[in-house]
């Protein structure tokens, strides 16, 4: 018993030396208590090196205690990968604070998402940087879903990459984007641009995505909450039945290479 107490004191002291307060050190020691002190200190140190404050690092570890078990080399490596993608300094801190899974995401998955964004969605490196800074969670997204999300904005809504980045396309869940877009479309307020048409009177994607729902309804859709609520229910039912229909045809259809990918709707 005394031994444990002594060890505890020793660990706490080390953490204090790194910059944690007594209270913070106590909280940190409470996470994964059976973990060796070296691991704990090393993980905490890595996060501090990234520039996170003691409180931010602690918060991150409390939300994702699994990080404590990651070898520090991997933490370092991943931080490096993210930096190479363009997430520097404060952006990196914010990104990992918001999305701790950026550390635990398998390398292959991350690479696939990046490849998709660069090679298929054709975002420039600069655009990718900004996307990652504003919506780091894109890396966590299943590539097929991500692609579907992108294609919807590109083909169905006629929006170019530049506008997608400015509007922070991936910050809004796909289902919500679809609800707002189709609501506008059916009200006659949004039109898919025709080939060659550069100018449209469509509302800007930025406004569609970033306005809070109340303002979206009054200023863009000129509608009421009640109408929108009913609309969302009706649309959800339409989708459900479309999925059922697609599933039925897929069973009958030998050739599974359909243009409509089988991504699940949100």
């Amino acid at each position, binding site marked *: 018993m005394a031994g444990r107490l002594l060890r505890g004191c020793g660990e706490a002291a080390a953490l204090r030396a790194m910059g944690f307060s007594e209270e913070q050190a106590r909280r940190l020691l409470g996470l994964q208590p059976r973990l060796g002190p070296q691991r704990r200190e090393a993980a905490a140190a890595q996060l501090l090196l990234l520039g996170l404050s003691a409180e931010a690092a602690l918060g991150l570890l409390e939300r994702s205690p699994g990080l404590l078990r990651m070898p520090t080399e991997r933490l370092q490596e991943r931080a490096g990968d993210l930096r190479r993608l363009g997430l520097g300094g404060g952006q990196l801190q914010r990104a990992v604070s918001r999305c701790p899974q950026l550390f635990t995401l398998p390398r292959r998955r991350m690479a696939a998402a990046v490849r998709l964004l660069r090679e298929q969605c054709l975002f420039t490196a600069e655009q990718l940087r900004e996307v990652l800074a504003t919506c780091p969670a894109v890396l966590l997204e299943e590539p097929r879903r991500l692609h579907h999300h992108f294609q919807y904005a590109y083909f169905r809504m006629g929006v170019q990459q530049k506008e997608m980045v400015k509007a922070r396309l991936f910050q809004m869940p796909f289902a919500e984007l679809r609800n707002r877009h189709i609501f506008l479309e059916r*009200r006659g307020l949004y039109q898919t641009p025709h080939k060659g048409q550069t100018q449209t009177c469509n509302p800007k994607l930025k406004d569609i995505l970033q306005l809070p729902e109340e303002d979206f309804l009054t200023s863009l859709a000129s509608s009421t909450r009640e109408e929108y609520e*009913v609309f969302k229910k009706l649309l959800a039912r339409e989708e459900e039945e479309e999925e059922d229909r697609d599933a039925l045809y897929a069973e009958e259809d030998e050739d599974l290479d359909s243009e409509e990918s089988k991504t699940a709707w949100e």
Partner: protein
Amino acid sequence: AATAPRIPATRLALHHFDTSYSLQLKDLWPSVRAGLLCEQKYGALLNNFSPVSHVTQELELLNATDFVSEAPKKVQQLQCGAAAGEAGRGEGRSQEGSGEGRTVMQAETMTQAEMSPVLRASISPNIKCYTFPRGDITRFRPARPDTLGLLDYYLMDAASLLPVLALNVQPDDFVLDLCAAPGGKTLALLQTGVCGHLAANDISISRTKRLYQILHSYVPKEIRETVSVTSCDGRDWGQVEGGTFHKVLVDVPCTTDRHSVMEEDNNIFHRRRTKERQMLPMLQLQLLMAGILATKPGGEVVYSTCSLSPLQNEYVIERAVEIAETQFNINIHVEDLSHFRTLSFFSDCRLGELVLPHLTANFGPMYFCKLRR
């Protein structure tokens, strides 16, 4: 060589409506448009020829109510709420029903009250139609047969019942349904149980088959025998049986707006049907004239369409009233139906009533107007 890509008829219809209805309905058009493009709301017309009590129980458990008996209660609420309900236009407020005071909006509440005698006296009796509350998108289960094989209810657009209610069928009336197929309104007429005789006509033999099916599925033999089904051109009716009927329903062929934006099949906006579509107002006028001529003096005609277009609605009424006067020396009085504005959303018309589709009560479009000879 590839053929030119065909623009779907539904897209042509929608474009046509965008052009004309946005001018006509202004601020209201986006809501109506969205309503047309989403799943419509149905009502369940109860079959009085089949035991109904367990069905009404079932429906009420699901929170559906009979809008026909609810309607008069709302007339009173309307009168209180009318001032509040008519909002100014163009202020960007998301107030429901705003639109230069042209739309009268009713909230559906479930208060129990006595049926207003004014309304009760002026609608066709015994018709019961259940609908789910405003904003509730629950679907009715398919109709089921009873022990005698008759179906328990008929699913239809609740707004389609309004012309039948407006006709105000009285006991022993001779009733003519000039364009009866496929038969929903005909069935509703029979549900009143008071038609002395019902003549159901439609020019199309194939659609009349559907009418027969409906009669067989819902109506017992002895009642069916009181209905005479014919397949004539309705325009000839005035000459054949002038001045015979107490009540005439003229539910004319029209651009079936909702169908035209949703279904490619049988769509009047197909390029090859352009001539037919352009001739519709003339056809509608001729049918209405025939209906008027078939009415006894003092009798009543209800004209109805499922289109929003004034060319098929008010204009036809106006022309018919004029022609009746000038060419047939028949004086026509257009009846006031404003007490009907208790279901869903209405738009002000010069003549008659127009039900507008709206997501929260997605019935219609339905135009109807009552004339007394």
